[in-house]
C-alpha cells in the first residue's frame, strides 16, 4: 500500500516533479562536467601553462556550484512536501503512524533525487564532450577534447549522490514531521490595507527615484575618481531598488488589484470579479518568492553586465597595448626585419609612420595639475592610413581637428571629452583637442601621451626628436625563436630622452641619450620594439575560459530562478484548484479559465522580469560606456528575456494542461 501511495503522489505531481528533476539534473550535469574538466587529459595536454589554474578554478567553481544547487534543491524540494500537507494529515487521521508518513516523504524525496542524479549523470556523460569542445572553441584551441571521467570523479559523484540524497530526504522528512505536529492550517492572510497602501506607494516612489538616480549616474560616473556623488548614487539605487521592489510587491500591486476589484464597471464584467481576487490571493502567497527571484535575476543580469564590460575593457586594453603583433622604431626596425627574414615569418601587413617628439604643457583636469612633458606627434593623414582597429576606441576627428591619446585611468571608461589649451614648444597653442585611449603601434611604444594633428600643423612643427614607427601583422605569428628573442632583448630600449625643463617651454630642450643615465629626473625611454608573442594566445584562452564559466553560471542561475517561478504556479493550493473547477461547473467557458491561468503566468513572470531589467540598468551606468547601451548588452538582456519568456510559456502550457487534465475540460 505504501508503494502505491508513493507512486500515486509522484504521479499526481508529475508535471511539477518533472520540472524540478530537470532543473536538478541540469545542475548535477554541470557539476559533473566541471568536476571532470579539471583532470581531463586533453585539457592537461592542451593547456600546459594553465593546468593548475584551470584545475583550481574548476574545483572552486564546482564547489560553489554544488553549494548553490544544494540550497536550490532543499528549498524547492520543500514545495512538494508543503503541497502534500493535507494528504499527510489525512493519512494521520486515518490512523497511519507518524513515522510511516515521515518515511513515505523520505522515500519520495530519495526517489526524486535518484531520478535527478541518474539524468544528471547521464547528461554529464553525454554532454561532457560537447561542453569540452565548446570550452576549447571559446579558448580558440585546435585540439580534440577526449571524453574522460576519472575513477576519482566517479567516486566523488557517487559520494555526493549518496550524501545529498540522504540529507535532502532527511530535510523533507523533518518538514513532514513539523507539518504533522502543527494541527491547524492557517490560510487566512491579513490584508492590512492601512499598511499596504502607504507602503506600496512609498515603494513605487523608491523605484522611480532609483531610476532617476540611475539616469543621473550615467552622467556622474566619470567623476568617481574625485567625487563621492556616484558612490552615494549607487548606494541609494541599490537600497531603493531592493526595498522598493519588495514594497511594490507587498503593497502597490495588491492595491491595484484591490482597486480594480472595487471599480464595479471593471470587476462586474466577465471573469474579472473572480480573477482580481484570485490573483491577489496568489500574489499574497508569493510575495517573498517573487521578490527573491527579482533580486537574484537582477543580480545575475548585473553580474553578466559587469562581466561583459570587464571582458570588453580588458580586450580593449589588450588591443590598445598590442595593436600590431610586432612593433618597432627606426633604430630597431632593421634588426627586426633581418630576424623576420630568418624566421621565414609570413607577413600579412606592414606599416610605418613618421612621428615627431616635442615638448608640451597643459592643465590636466583629472590630476588637477599642470603637466610638462614630451609628447609624440603624428599627422592626420598618417593616422588615417593605419588600420581601422587603431582608431576604433578613439574620438572621431576630421583633418582640421586634434586628437590627444592618453592612458586611461579606468578600464571601464570610454569617454570622449575635450581638453583645452595645450601649449606646444615653438608652435601655436592647441585650443581644443578630442581625446582617446587607443595608441597606434601600442601604448608601450610611447613614453607618454600622443597627439594626432592636422597635416599642416605637423609639417610646420619643429621636432626635438624625429622617429619612425613600424608595425607588422603575421599569418600564424612571427615565428621568432627563443635564440632570436634573446638577441632582440638587447634592443628593448631604443634611446633615452633627458628633458631639461626651463622657465618657459620654448627654452626647454630634450637631450637624446643612447645609454641609460645613472641618475637624474625627467628621463623618458623610447621602446625599441614591442612583441605580443604568447600573450595573445593566453589572452584568448583566459577570455574563453572566463566566458565559459560565466555563461554556465548565469544560465544555471536563470534556470533555477525560472523553475522556482514555474513551480510556484504549478503547485497551487487545493482550494485554489477547486475554485477553478467550480467556475467551470457554474458555466465559465474554458477560454475564460484559460485567461485566468494566463494572467497568473503573466503576473508571475512579467513583473519580476521588468523589475529585474530596470534594476540591472544601474550596472550599465556603473560601467559607464559613454552613456549609450551597446548592441551586445542588449543581446545579453534579450537572451534573458527570451529564457524567461520560454519559462513563462512552458509553465503556462504545463499549468493549463494540468488543469485541463484534472477537471476534464
Amino acid at each position, binding site marked *: 500500500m505504501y508503494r502505491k501511495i508513493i507512486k500515486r503522489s509522484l504521479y499526481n505531481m508529475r508535471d511539477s516533479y518533472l520540472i524540478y528533476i530537470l532543473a536538478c539534473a541540469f545542475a548535477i550535469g554541470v557539476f559533473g562536467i566541471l568536476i571532470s574538466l579539471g583532470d581531463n587529459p586533453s585539457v592537461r595536454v592542451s593547456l600546459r601553462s594553465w593546468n593548475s589554474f584551470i584545475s583550481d578554478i574548476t574545483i572552486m567553481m564546482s564547489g560553489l556550484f554544488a553549494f548553490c544547487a544544494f540550497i536550490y534543491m532543499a528549498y524547492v524540494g520543500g514545495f512538494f512536501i508543503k503541497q502534500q500537507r493535507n494528504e499527510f494529515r489525512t493519512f494521520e487521521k486515518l490512523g497511519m503512524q507518524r513515522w510511516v508518513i515521515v518515511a513515505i516523504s523520505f522515500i519520495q524525496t530519495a526517489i526524486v533525487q535518484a531520478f535527478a542524479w541518474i539524468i544528471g549523470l547521464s547528461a554529464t556523460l553525454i554532454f561532457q564532450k560537447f561542453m569540452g569542445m565548446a570550452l576549447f572553441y571559446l579558448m580558440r584551441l585546435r585540439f580534440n577534447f577526449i571524453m574522460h571521467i576519472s575513477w576519482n570523479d566517479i567516486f566523488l559523484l557517487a559520494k555526493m549522490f549518496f550524501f545529498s540524497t540522504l540529507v535532502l530526504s532527511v530535510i523533507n522528512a523533518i518538514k513532514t514531521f513539523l507539518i504533522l505536529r502543527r494541527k491547524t492550517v492557517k490560510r487566512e492572510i491579513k490584508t492590512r490595507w492601512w499598511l499596504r497602501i502607504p507602503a506600496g506607494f512609498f515603494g513605487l516612489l523608491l523605484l522611480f527615484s532609483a531610476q532617476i538616480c540611475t539616469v543621473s549616474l550615467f552622467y556622474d560616473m566619470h567623476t568617481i575618481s574625485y567625487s563621492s556623488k556616484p558612490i552615494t548614487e549607487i548606494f541609494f539605487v541599490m537600497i531603493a531598488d531592493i526595498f522598493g521592489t519588495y514594497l511594490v510587491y507587498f503593497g502597490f500591486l495588491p492595491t491595484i488589484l484591490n482597486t480594480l476589484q472595487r471599480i464595479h464597471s471593471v*470587476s*462586474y464584467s466577465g471573469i474579472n*470579479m*473572480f480573477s482580481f481576487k484570485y490573483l491577489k490571493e496568489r500574489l499574497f502567497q508569493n510575495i517573498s518568492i517573487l521578490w527573491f527571484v527579482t533580486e537574484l535575476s537582477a543580480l545575475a543580469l548585473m553580474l553578466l553586465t559587469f562581466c561583459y564590460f570587464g571582458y570588453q575593457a580588458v580586450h580593449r586594453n589588450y588591443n590598445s597595448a598590442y595593436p600590431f603583433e610586432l612593433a618597432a622604431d627606426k633604430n630597431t626596425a632593421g634588426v627586426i626585419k633581418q630576424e623576420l627574414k630568418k624566421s621565414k615569418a609570413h607577413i600579412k601587413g606592414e606599416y610605418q609612420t613618421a612621428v615627431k617628439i616635442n615638448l608640451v604643457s597643459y592643465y590636466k583636469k583629472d590630476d588637477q595639475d599642470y603637466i610638462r612633458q614630451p609628447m609624440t606627434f603624428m599627422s592626420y593623414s598618417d593616422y588615417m592610413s593605419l588600420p581601422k582597429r587603431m582608431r576604433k576606441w578613439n574620438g572621431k576627428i576630421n583633418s582640421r581637428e586634434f586628437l590627444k591619446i592618453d592612458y586611461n585611468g579606468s578600464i571601464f571608461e570610454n569617454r570622449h571629452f575635450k581638453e583645452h589649451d595645450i601649449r606646444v614648444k615653438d608652435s601655436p597653442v592647441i585650443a581644443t583637442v578630442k581625446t582617446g585611449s587607443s595608441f597606434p603601434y601600442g601604448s608601450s611604444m610611447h613614453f607618454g601621451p600622443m597627439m594626432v594633428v592636422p597635416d599642416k600643423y605637423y609639417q610646420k612643427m619643429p621636432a626635438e626628436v624625429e622617429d619612425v614607427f613600424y608595425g607588422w601583422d603575421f599569418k600564424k605569428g612571427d615565428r621568432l625563436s627563443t635564440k632570436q628573442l634573446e638577441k632582440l632583448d638587447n634592443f628593448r630600449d631604443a634611446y633615452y630622452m633627458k628633458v631639461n625643463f626651463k622657465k618657459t617651454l620654448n627654452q626647454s630642450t630634450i637631450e637624446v641619450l643612447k645609454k641609460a643615465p645613472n641618475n637624474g629626473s625627467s628621463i623618458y625611454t623610447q621602446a625599441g620594439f614591442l612583441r605580443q608573442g604568447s600573450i595573445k594566445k593566453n589572452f584568448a584562452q583566459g577570455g574563453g575560459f572566463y566566458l565559459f564559466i560565466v555563461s554556465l553560471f548565469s544560465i544555471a542561475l536563470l534556470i533555477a530562478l525560472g523553475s522556482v517561478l514555474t513551480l510556484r504556479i504549478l503547485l497551487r493550493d487545493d482550494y485554489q484548484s477547486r475554485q477553478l473547477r*467550480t467556475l467551470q*461547473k*457554474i*458555466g465559465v467557458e*474554458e477560454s*475564460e479559465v484559460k485567461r485566468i491561468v494566463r494572467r497568473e503566468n503573466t503576473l508571475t513572470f512579467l513583473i519580476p522580469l521588468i523589475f529585474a531589467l530596470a534594476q540591472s540598468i544601474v550596472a550599465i551606468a556603473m560601467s559607464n560606456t559613454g552613456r549609450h547601451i551597446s548592441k551586445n548588452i542588449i543581446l545579453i538582456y534579450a537572451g534573458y528575456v527570451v529564457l524567461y519568456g520560454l519559462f513563462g510559456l512552458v509553465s503556462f502550457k504545463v499549468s493549463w494542461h494540468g488543469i485541463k487534465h484534472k477537471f476534464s475540460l
Partner: protein
Amino acid sequence: MQIIVKNISKDFGKKRSAVHAIKDISLKVEHGEFLGIMGPSGAGKTTLLNMISTNERPDHGQIIVDGQDLTQLHDRDQTKYRRNKMGFIYQSFELLDSLNVKENVILPLALNRSNKKLIEERFDYMMNLLNIKKLSKRNIDELSLGQRQIVAAARALINSPGILFADEPTGSLDSKSATILLNYMQLVNQREKTTILMATHDAFTASYCSRVIFIKDGVVFSEVVNPGNRDKFFEQIINMQRTIGGGSYFNVSQDN
C-alpha cells in the same frame, strides 16, 4: 422549459473495466415541473443530471430542451447555454471562497456582462426572496452550512434560469436548513415556473417534488407522481425505495 431525454447512455472506464453508468434512459420533463431523481448510491443519478445539464456528454442519445438538441452543440455553445439557461445547486455548495456572498451570487450575471443596474436589481430581488439580505457582505467561511446552500441557491437563480439542477442539495444540511431550502425551491418553482431537476436519495427531500423517478443500475426503474398530499407522496417514495432496496413494503412488514 421542457426537457426530452431520448435513449441516452454513458459508460465510464475502458473496454474491460467499463462501467455502464446510464443504460438507454428516456424521459420527459414538462415546463415548470419539479422532478426528483432517486436511487441508491452509484445508480447514476448524478451522471444523468450532469448529462442533462451538459456538464458531461452522453455516449449515445439526445437531450432536447425546448426543441434544441443540446448534444449537437459545440462545447463552447454548451457552456454558454449552461450559463444563460441553467442554474446549479450542489451538495458541496461550490461557492468561491475568494469571493464574498454578494460577489458569489452576482457572478453569473457578471459573467454575462449584464449591466450594473440589472445586477443590483436582481441581487436585491434574490436576497429578499430568499431572505438573506443581511449576509450579503459576509465571507463564505463565516456562514453556516444551511446559509451557504441558500447562497448557492441564490446564485443558481439570479439569472432566472429556465432549469435548476440540484444535486443532493440537502446532503450537507441539518433538517431545519433542509426544510428552509426546499421551501424556497418550491417557492421558486411555483412563482417563477422554473423547471427543477433534483437528484437525492432522501425521501423527505424528494417529497417536495411533483414527480420522482427511480433509477437503479443505470436504468429508470419506476416513477411516482405526487398525488397532492405530501405525506402520502412521502410514503409512496419510501415504499419504492424499499422495493428498489430488494423487497416490497409488505415483504418488509412480514419479515418483521
